[in-house]
């Protein structure tokens, strides 16, 4: 079994390891791509404005973290993780879980709304037929 002091020293080493510049540039490029994609989708009416804040916020957070890696390192130390990348994975997983649950809730609501609308359509169509037939019958009766 490893000596706990040795393990702690190893963790310190991981935490202080300098990130490469390429990582930062890649992260900024990805967040910029995400932002541009969101804007493109909104412009082409494929994404509604009310669904964009989450993605714009995500892109901004990724940009800030890319520029201030010390923040990520502080967070890593605070949550007891070993490397900033594992913190990112952890946060990413939490984000995906949250967004899936959020969309499941929205989907459930929309399913109920859609069902109610379809039922309303069927009832109104039947009512319309009843009224049309009744007025036709009345018109035929008056014509005689």
């Amino acid at each position, binding site marked *: 079994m490893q000596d706990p002091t040795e393990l702690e020293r190893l963790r310190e080493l991981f935490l202080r390891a300098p990130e490469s510049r390429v990582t930062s540039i890649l992260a900024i490029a990805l967040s910029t791509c995400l932002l541009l994609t969101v804007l493109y989708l909104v412009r082409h009416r494929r994404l509604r404005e009310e669904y964009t804040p989450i993605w714009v916020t995500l892109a901004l957070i990724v940009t800030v973290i890319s520029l201030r890696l010390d923040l990520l390192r502080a967070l890593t130390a605070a949550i007891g993780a070993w490397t900033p990348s594992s913190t990112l994975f952890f946060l990413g997983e939490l984000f995906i879980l949250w967004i899936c649950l959020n969309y499941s809730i929205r989907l459930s609501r929309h399913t109920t709304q859609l069902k*109610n609308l379809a*039922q*309303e*359509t*069927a009832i109104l*169509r*039947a009512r319309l037929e009843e009224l*049309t037939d009744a007025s*036709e019958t009345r018109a035929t009766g008056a014509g005689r």
Partner: protein
Amino acid sequence: MSRTPATEPQAGEFLVLIPAFNEAARLPDVLRELGTLEQPHRVVVIDDGSRDKTAESARDLGATVLRLPFNLGYGAALQTGYKYAHASKATLIVQMDADGQHDPAFIPRLIAPIREGRADLVIGSRFARDSGYRMGWLHTLGRLLFQRIARLAGLHVTDPTSGLQAMNGSVLELYSGDFFPSDYPDVDVLLEAFRRGLRIEECAVEMRPGQRRSTLHGGLRSFYYVYRLTLALWAGARAANPR
């Protein structure tokens, strides 16, 4: 064939609701059988997005047709009928399946407790008396399990999944709510009605072997059925006692 003119709804009517999905072959026989019913009634067929001539054949035989724009599921189709009946201010409603499983000869017996003011909801039960009706072991197991749960809550029903039921207008408002399942209404719905103080009775009936429900409790679906119903019962109990 020319379309039979639709009848205007009248308050206090007796409506027979029949949800149907691709039942053009069997529905006409059911409608003809219903024609022998002595009590004045109006048949409302809820076409659940059928791809065949279900709606046309029902209309040709004089039924009012509620045509859903796409398939919503048995429960949602049935609920469409409840909503229509509620809007039409119907006071007596019978629901039955479109596959010929239910014999209209039992309807007078089914509606009697409602007409006499003894019950709000009457379930046509295959198991209230041994009618010789047999179903798969998983279905039987699920039925017994939920029957026991209902009994714990004070509701004594032997056939909560029966599609042959009669009700009065007071049930319609409750059944038009968003809690009503889109797939298959079961003991969860009955328990909700029971909690709201509606009087539920059973009436022994015999049923012919059906088509629709034979696949409901097969394979993985049985497990989903038990899971969904457990969740629905829990949610219903939570809604009744929010603390």
